[in-house]
């Protein structure tokens, strides 16, 4: 029963990561841009939603404001800053987008102050659902899982079944050829970046009632997000989905059960120390193992 609950926890955490990773992997894979400021867009989504939610009391307004703010600011940043970086090497991109992190953190501090914000939980999701007898599971976390699955399905349909998706896939495998065929690749880039920002904003909105809405919240999850897209294969939405679930599961299950299992063979304090150490590393060990086995990730997007 505990196992079932922890598996659900792992799935939920994984799906939260997927919402962030999907946008990042599209941007990274298609545009070849390392965007460290992806976490800032997540923060913008969370802050805008918390602000709108507190001002209007409506979760719908919070959702629309959060996603809208992230998408609009994302596209503005793409047009003003990132467009100049596509041709340059990754180090320049890292430096510039790191600068954006500092800029957005400071801007959020100036606008909202240094203390964490209160983010309203929609009352109809405030309760818990008894999935298994005796194990109430928070309804909000089930909602996160549902939203994540919908986003995954929507992205799959978009990428696999639409003309825009075809162009995205084409841009992913041979950007020069797409340009040569007369497609406005700049517009596609802006749209893809806007889509990534929208998803980051959605993740921020969903995270608000569960996590602490504070300056720097994006950097906390950014590293895990990169781990996810590296495991999944850069540029692949399917990879991001599988990678995110893997990372969520491994992280949750090792934290939950490893110390207990080690206690069977080690003394309590040793088991705690080793268990804590290994479970903190588990995600990175997973990444190393996957890269040894498949150096380009599980589902490499470039043929």
């Amino acid at each position, binding site marked *: 029963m505990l196992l079932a609950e922890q598996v659900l926890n792992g799935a939920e955490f994984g799906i939260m990561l997927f919402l962030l990773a999907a946008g990042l992997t599209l941007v990274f894979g298609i545009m070849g841009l390392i965007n460290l400021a992806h976490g800032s867009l997540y923060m913008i989504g969370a802050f805008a939603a918390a602000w709108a939610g507190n001002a209007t009391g409506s979760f719908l307004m919070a959702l629309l404001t959060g996603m809208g703010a992230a998408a609009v600011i994302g596209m503005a940043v793409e047009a003003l800053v990132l467009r100049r970086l596509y041709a340059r090497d990754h180090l320049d991109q890292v430096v510039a987008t790191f600068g954006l992190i500092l800029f957005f953190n400071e801007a959020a501090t100036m606008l909202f102050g240094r203390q964490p914000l209160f983010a309203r939980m929609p009352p109809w999701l405030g309760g818990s659902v008894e999935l298994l007898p005796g194990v109430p599971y928070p309804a909000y976390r089930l909602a996160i899982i549902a939203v994540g699955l919908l986003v995954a399905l929507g992205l799959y349909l978009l990428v696999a079944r639409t003309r825009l998706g075809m162009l995205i896939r084409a841009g992913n495998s041979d950007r020069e050829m797409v340009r040569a065929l007369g497609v406005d690749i700049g517009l596609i880039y802006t749209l893809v970046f806007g889509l990534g920002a929208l998803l980051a904003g959605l993740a921020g909105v969903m995270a608000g009632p*569960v*996590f602490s809405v504070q*300056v720097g919240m994006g950097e906390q999850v950014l590293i895990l997000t990169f781990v996810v897209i590296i495991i999944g294969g850069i540029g692949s939405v399917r990879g991001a989905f599988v990678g995110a679930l893997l990372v969520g599961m491994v992280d949750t299950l090792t934290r939950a059960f490893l110390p207990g299992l080690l206690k069977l063979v080690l003394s309590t304090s040793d088991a705690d120390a080793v268990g804590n150490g290994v479970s903190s590393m588990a995600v990175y060990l997973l990444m190393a193992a996957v890269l040894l086995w498949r150096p380009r990730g599980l589902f490499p997007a470039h043929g």
Partner: protein
Amino acid sequence: MGIGIKAFGAAALAMGLTCQAFAADPVKIGMITTLSGPGGYLGEDVRDGFQLAIDQDSGKLGGVPVAVEVEDDGLKPGAAKDIAQRMLASEHIKLMTGIIFSNVAGAVVPDILDAGAFYVSPNAAPSGFAGKDCNKNYFVVAWQNDALHEAAGEYANQLGYKKMFILAPNYQAGKDSLGGFKRTYKGEVVGEIYTKLDQTDFAPELAQIRDAKPDAVFQFEPGGLGITFLKQYVQAGLMDKIPMVLASPSMDARTLGAVGEAALGVQVASHWNSDFDNAANKQFVAAYEAKFHRTPTYYAAMGYDTARLIGSALKATGGDVDKADAFRAALRKADFPSVRGAFKFGANQHPIEDWYELKVVKGEDGKPILKTVGTIYKDRGDAYAAECKM
């Protein structure tokens, strides 16, 4: 009559001159604190509380003009060390304060003391400096780090909890907190978990807590971690079943604002609360709220107390920090009305103070507030004072 006016004019002129002489040479105070990042509001409150005391005394402390230089350490010990070096070496600052985090204090305080300057801590108080590494120029206004967790342990005893589940982040202050809690808690610890310092999802730990069926939970998840933990704890439906005991860093007026109603019922061990009924505190809380439009946290209260303690010593020595022995003796007396009420220094120059039971309840306007409901300890010092040989 004419002569009278002239004399008055001359006297006024003379007074103006002396005032100018003072104003040109205020006592410099270096404040290194954390103003950026998720912990930034802690330093902001210490700074604002400190500044409030100066503003109330029109730019002075204890009647002596002061100039405070505030620098942000960004929670980076290396950066804080550089700032301290500059303040000590090129600006000849003899009096420093402000550090929030113990890891920063551990790196910076030895440099300050080696340079012969004074350090008066508004918050950080790692065990080393309270025990064998204590120093005659090192004072702590808030507490010794372990004391708050010891108070929480005793609070759990008094509440009659027989089985506790305890957790904290896996770093030095987290380990100290669980160690401090276990030092005074007499019941059984049925589960002990160290979480990650950058953790955002506590669902696995919450499932373990539910499974262990403790009487109550003690957690030391400071700042944003604690907000996240509390939100998820309530959403998992645990708050109604398993009550929570906290040390004050896990629940202050600002975190309460971010958690909201979810925090109702949480029990906090603290040395200060905004509702304390003493004259010094009442005027402090009123003045702080009027100036900054927010309820002061204990960080703000400690910033204020630190400034007033420094003021008392400046007054006693006429503002001459270079007379180190006299200044130190004046600091030791702690001759100021603390917002906590009873307050004095122990042999290791850490506080001997009372600890209180607080509870999060609904305030008059329906918003949750921290309410003082009882006393945990009277005149409590810390566990390390005996190791201090000065």
